[in-house]
């Protein structure tokens, strides 16, 4: 454009005006330069984003374990379908299930540290043994009180301190109350870890357990698989299961009837072990249900029934008292 103008128009004066012109334009140039740089970086970013979900595949592994050659056209189609699938998973994952308000009740009197919830959870979400979306803690409220086991998932707070601080909407609360993490958005600043008073969040410090096997899977924000290095992961209340009318992985895995899970809007919770369905309000009222550290104002959506009338006396690694090492605690419930 400018060249054409110069060719057709009159030549500009170049002597004493030149510098002034130059200086005048300096601001514009700097501004334009910044804009162009930003644009270029963004385009690079966008491109990166677009090519990210799928690398070039030459051989494809079929379901029965056969290697197959796939033509490029098919391949491209497959890529597109993965992308659309992924967008769809993102869309519904961010939206949540209308009219639901998930709630969990954990009966501490039944927990005996079987840790099947932890194993099931780590299996479903492809986590390493030291990574816990749900963690069974050994707790003691005061010096002379009896220790007990306390499974601790994410509490999916109604006033979540973690989503408050997220700079990029990577962790968010859906309309059904689940606090999710989008690891395609997460920048890995770990502010949410710092903000969560319940230590419910983990970070992929190194390559996730199955990142190699999972790398071609479409990202399901409701399962947070494939997990990604440098991003956060957390308990998702097994949002993928809930969509299919199934109870969460941990709830189903418990052999001792510890977990109840349900919809507050239906006022019922279902026990994952016995499949017994009971009124939530009644269960909480009759058993003295409470939430952890409710004085922080986080409004947790996981309720506990106190560890009374226990089936099993507390025992951990042969000891019936809390290990002094475990007393690195901030003081149990208070």
């Amino acid at each position, binding site marked *: 454009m400018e060249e054409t103008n110069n060719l057709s128009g009159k030549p500009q004066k170049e002597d004493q005006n030149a510098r002034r012109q130059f200086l005048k334009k300096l601001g514009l140039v700097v501004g334009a330069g910044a804009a162009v740089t930003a644009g270029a970086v963004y385009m690079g*970013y966008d491109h990166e984003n677009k090519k990210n979900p799928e690398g070039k595949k030459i051989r494809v592994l079929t379901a029965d374990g056969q290697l197959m050659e796939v033509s490029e056209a098919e391949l491209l189609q497959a890529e597109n379908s993965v992308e659309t699938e992924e967008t769809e998973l993102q869309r519904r994952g961010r939206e949540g299930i209308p009219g639901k308000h998930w709630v969990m009740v954990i009966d501490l009197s039944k927990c005996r540290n079987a840790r099947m919830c932890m194993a099931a959870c780590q299996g479903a979400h492809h986590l390493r043994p*030291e990574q816990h979306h749900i963690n069974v803690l050994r707790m003691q409220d005061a010096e002379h009180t009896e220790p007990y086991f306390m499974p601790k998932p994410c509490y999916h707070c109604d006033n979540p301190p973690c989503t*408050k*601080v997220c*700079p990029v909407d990577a962790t968010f609360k859906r309309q059904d109350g689940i606090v999710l993490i989008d690891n395609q*958005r997460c*920048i*890995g600043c770990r502010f949410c870890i710092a903000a969560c008073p319940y230590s419910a*969040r983990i970070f992929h410090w190194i390559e996730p357990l199955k990142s190699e096997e999972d790398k071609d899977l479409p990202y399901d924000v409701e399962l947070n698989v494939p997990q990604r290095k440098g991003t956060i992961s957390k308990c998702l209340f097994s949002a993928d299961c809930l969509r299919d009318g199934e109870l969460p992985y941990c709830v189903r895995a418990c052999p001792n009837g510890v977990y109840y899970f349900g919809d507050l809007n239906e006022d019922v919770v279902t026990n994952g072990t016995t499949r017994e369905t009971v009124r939530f309000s009644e269960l909480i009222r009759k058993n003295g249900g409470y939430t952890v550290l409710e004085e922080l104002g986080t409004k947790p959506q996981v309720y506990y029934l106190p560890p009374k009338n226990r089936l099993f006396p507390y025992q951990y690694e042969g000891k019936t008292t809390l290990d002094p090492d475990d007393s690195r605690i901030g003081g149990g419930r208070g």
Partner: protein
Amino acid sequence: MSVNKLSPEESRSVLNKIETDLLRPLTHHKGFELWILFLALVFIVGGYAYFIQLRDGLGVTAMRDYTSWGMYIGNFVFFVATSLIGMFISSVLGLLKIKWITPISRIAEMIALAFAMWAGIVIVIDMGRPDRLLNVFLHGRFQSPIVWDVTVVTTYVAISTLLLLLPLIPDAAIVRRRLPDLPKWQMKIYDLLHLGWEARPDQYQTIRRSMRILAILIIPVALSIHTVTSWLFAATLRAGWDSTIFGPYFVSGAFVAGAAAVIIAMYFFRYNYKLGDYITDFHFNRMGQVLVLVSAVYIYFNLNEYFVPAYKMRTAEQLHLHEMFQGHWAFLFWFTQIGCLAIPTLLLIFKRMRKPGIMLWLSVLVLIGAWFKRLLIVVPVQQHPYLPIQNVPESFHHYVPTGIEIMLTFLPIAGVLLIITIIAKLFPVMPVWEIAHEKGVDESMIK
């Protein structure tokens, strides 16, 4: 103004001396290449460390799920803190019409700009996904203190740059006139920057007015960068960070670190750049007094920050405070509080101690203490969450920085030094025109 005007002849000779003294480092630079080489070496080592971190993930650091913010965030807080001094010296003291800051104002601004710029880079080093940095702008949540922090740090860098550049306009004209034999690219910079400076009264007026506007503008911005930085902690529910005085506590601490950094830089420029006539014992005396003042305020905030919770010993804070006072962190804690804050402050109360040599070492101590203090604010709190840390490897309970983290701490420090080196190499470290003006040189000659 109480400046006694000099006659044109006197003016000429005084200006000539000032120009000669202040512009000498631009052409005489013993050991400059060696220094740059050293910084480059630190950059290469740091760059390699960062490459490893990018390749293997943040797992190469000692940070884990519980102590998930470590030295990098400590560095960030330290860098932001140190950068605040630019605002304090050239704005607060400047607007109060305090004269003795003229020769150190540019030093303070260089420190401010260098630390603020690198603070932004330090925070990227801490990110798990630096490739997604743009998400902060594309998907920014205005509710997040990080977005506020990014905004105010960027703004502060911009204003600091302007505050550094504006007084450089007359100086660029001077350099252009005095040193026409400098390399072409360098001359181009002065050419661009002097903006047709002719020492006209209206030009003086524009520059002075603009500088005053920026000096006022930078005060709230500077206060907010460190206040927002403190909110990264205070906005959480963690016992130990959950404090209402974190903003002023951080800001007062920032001035301590910054004042110490300025004293160190003053010492260096005085002796290395042979500027003893300009940065005198009087200036050190004054800066010593400033350091005492800001340290006293900081000590007062420390008392509030530690004594009040310790008096109550709330369950949640108990373990944290015990670890600080007599446990794992006790040595570092008392070293920073007593050795690097209380003792230097007490010593500097005595005029005898406010001499360049002693002040240099005390300032180094204060600055090191300031850095450790940031680590002590960031790390230990995370090791005592409300709920116990269990079923994780032993390494999750502790935090001992790895070699990578140390290398990536030296990288931004070298970066800061590099920026200061470059600025001090390209431009006089003091505003020539302002000093000349204070000595009574005829203003219209300063071009």
